[in-house]
């Protein structure tokens, strides 16, 4: 079950890689695979049990898979130290401003959407 789902995921990624080399070099192979799988699911109308099992087990361990690439940060310690305040400031300010903005905007849009629904 798990293996069959995994095979599907690998197949879609390989398909994505092929397309990435043939015609869309800006998009990474796995992302094209994601889009292809989404289209496939929409056409198919449901998620098969093997696929859903493989996807949920892989996504459960996603944080673990990300540890080795994250450790690569030790190679860039010097660059981070050089730009430390710029990085910290940019991250804190942009996150707070964009989150506040997105929340307020969505809140207002939902209210308008609901009002329109009441009086068609």
């Amino acid at each position, binding site marked *: 079950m798990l293996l069959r789902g995994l095979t599907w*995921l690998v197949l879609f*990624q390989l398909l*994505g890689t092929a397309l990435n080399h043939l015609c869309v070099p*800006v*998009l*990474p192979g*796995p*992302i094209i*695979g*994601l*889009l292809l*799988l*989404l289209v496939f*699911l*929409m056409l198919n109308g449901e*998620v098969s049990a093997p*696929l859903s099992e493989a*996807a949920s087990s*892989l*996504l459960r361990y*996603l*944080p673990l*898979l*990300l*540890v*080795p*690439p*994250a*450790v*690569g*940060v*030790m190679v*860039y310690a010097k*660059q*981070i130290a050089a*730009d430390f*305040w*710029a*990085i910290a400031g*940019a*991250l*804190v*300010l*942009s*996150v*707070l*401003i*964009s*989150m*506040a903005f*997105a*929340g*307020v*905007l*969505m*809140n207002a*849009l*939902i*209210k308008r*959407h609901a009002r329109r629904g009441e009086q068609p």
Partner: protein
Amino acid sequence: MNFDWQGAWAAVIHHPLFGIGITLGTYQLVLAGFEKTRWVFLQPVLASMALVVAILLLCDLEYAEYRRSTEILGILLGPATVALAVPLYLNLRRIRQLFWPIFTTLVIGGILATGLGVFFGWLFGADHMILMTLLPKSVTSPIAMLVAEQIGGVAALAAVFVLITGVIGAIAGPWLLTRLGVHAPEARGMALGMTAHAVGTSVALQESEECGAFAALAMSLMGVATAVLLPLAVTLVV
């Protein structure tokens, strides 16, 4: 009889399984700690990363060697990215119901979240490599890492920026949204998931099921939109 302690130690730390061993070990340790304390700073990736770096420095091992021995974990990242299509598909019905609010917020908010990071970074004088790595900071790490690599940033740094962004958003976000009078669970979830990805989503899930669903939805939409549009935008602008 004389034991060759040094030789044995070297054989252990240079064994191809050593990297995987410390990764699995620290990850589980951090996860157990997080379950117990629910402390936001114990984000699994961030805390495991810090522990693994400490171990590598103590053992005097190079990153390249660690990377080689954990290659098998890295290979699985691709299929995991493809697997994101499944939760996205399962949320499609919700998207259709509130299509325009979601679409508008995603476009304007997404551009703002991405643009502001680079703008402030540039304003505070960060260099080009750091700026390119700051671009995908609001998306979930696998996508951010892929995109950063694609546009001339550094995948490892992107992962760290993504995590810091998530942790800041998760700590300050709910308070900030309440102060601003954002009470609709859809809007709170959308804001948390869009700007603080997985970490924000986990906070949103604690608020309510609906809030969490919208956060997951916003996170995957933002991820896909960034993956598709950011490389295009960068090739056009730079």
